[in-house]
């Protein structure tokens, strides 16, 4: 139960952080033209193709106790990012970044230029245009991003194992516990927990599709 709650907590904070970080990132990638834009997009997309263990390994190298960044974080915040919940959260945010940014990017791209131009000519400044035109029209994409980031984090294995270290009660998530159950031939427990994750994933996708359909009808 503790592992399941930890997974939920991690998925919730990751999804929320990704909306806050990912939305401006998606917006910039769609509407801003600057040197290095393609490199930024490649970095955001990379976790899609990068093995989770590689990301976890570099995370440990970069934020480990012996690294400069790790020492600085410990000095400033009094805690390390390795084998802690904070570390899991940062690693999950990095790993799930494309799952949140891409749906929002596609959603902002789908807002017709003529509609944005109409808002500008009607005197709308950046915030009025964003809050009253772009965001309401991109809302299905933002909701998809939220669900994708939540579901993806819930099922994460490689990154959380590398960065969290599978410490029961602290960094052991539901997927790590399923692995432990299988390793110890406790199939019944593995079945139970897997079924819970399966149902949650299915419900998330169904909720996403239902709300998208409602929003599309409304628009």
């Amino acid at each position: 139960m503790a592992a399941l709650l930890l997974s939920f907590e991690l998925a919730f904070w990751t999804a929320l952080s990704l909306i806050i970080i990912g939305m401006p990132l998606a917006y910039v990638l769609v509407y801003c033209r600057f040197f290095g834009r393609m490199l930024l997009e490649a970095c955001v997309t990379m976790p899609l193709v990068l093995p989770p263990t590689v990301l976890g390994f570099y995370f440990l190298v970069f934020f480990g106790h012996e690294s400069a960044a790790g020492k600085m974080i410990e000095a400033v915040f009094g805690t390390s990012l390795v084998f802690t919940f904070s570390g899991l959260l940062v690693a999950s945010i990095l790993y799930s970044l494309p799952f949140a940014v891409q749906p929002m990017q596609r959603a902002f791209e789908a807002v017709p230029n003529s509609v944005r131009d109409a808002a500008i000519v009607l005197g709308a400044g950046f915030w009025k245009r964003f809050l009253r035109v772009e965001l309401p029209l991109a809302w299905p994409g933002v909701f998809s991003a939220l669900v994708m980031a939540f579901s993806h984090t819930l099922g994460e294995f490689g990154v959380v194992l590398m960065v969290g270290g599978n410490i029961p009660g602290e960094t052991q998530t539901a997927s790590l516990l399923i692995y432990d159950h299988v390793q110890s031939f406790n199939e019944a427990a593995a079945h139970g927990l897997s079924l819970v994750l399966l149902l949650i994933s299915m419900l998330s996708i169904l909720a996403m599709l239902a709300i998208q359909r409602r929003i599309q009808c409304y628009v």
Partner: protein
Amino acid sequence: MFDIWLQYMKGRFVLDVKMRMQAGKFHILLGPSGAGKSTLLRLIAGLESDVNGKIEVPKGKPWLTPEGAVLPARSRSVGLMFQHHALFPHLTVEKNVAFGLSGDDISDQVRKLLLAVGLEERGKARPSQLSGGECQRVALARALAPQPELLLLDEPFSSLDGKTSREVEQLIRDLQRRENFTVLMVTHNRSEAYRLADHVWLMKEGRIIDGGEPDQLLLGKRISGRFQMQAEVCELDTDGLMAKVELLAEGRRFFVLIDETTVREQSIKAGNRVVLTAKATDFSLQTIE
């Protein structure tokens, strides 16, 4: 007077335009596709950057100066109507029209505007519930709401069918004459230009190649010719906007479409002898093998 001089380059396309538009008149930019007409509208509205030149307007500060001072698009007193209405799909008709308004009496202003475009009953509807013609009417009301100095129309009738197009066209012309605002409309349709414009600008490859009154420009100099022939009206068939007239002339029967208003004004009936006057612009020529 609107004094406009714009220079703009994008890739291989170069636009270099000088024009002076009289305030309160209906101006039309006529030219083939790719002439730069829509780009010119976007430059005047301030929707493109990296432009040189000047835009001086009858009231207030210049929108663009040769020294490079640029008034941002949202501060220019411009209304813009697009080819495909570009209404905000998530907002009701009322909220679309109110978008550019501020102050205390917004709902009153919206009501008056919807009344002016004949949509006072459709305020609560969303754009997806409207026909193409109704959408363009809402777009017109929305563009006129902030009382712009200049109304820019980018081929506003091209997505409408013939009958609806004529209705919206008439609405815009009537409102322009009543309220006396300045219009610059883009089209590649000569008949539209001839029917609507006080002044026509001919544009080609990013340049204004000529300008003048529609009669002089479209009939007088380049396309000469008007012809008349006597005919007898055999049958009249009216459908509320146009009249289909079957004529007998020189032993041949043929049909013409004319405004029903003309039929009413001239009291045309079957059996009448009439003189048919046609302008060269009413015809197109095609070689036959």
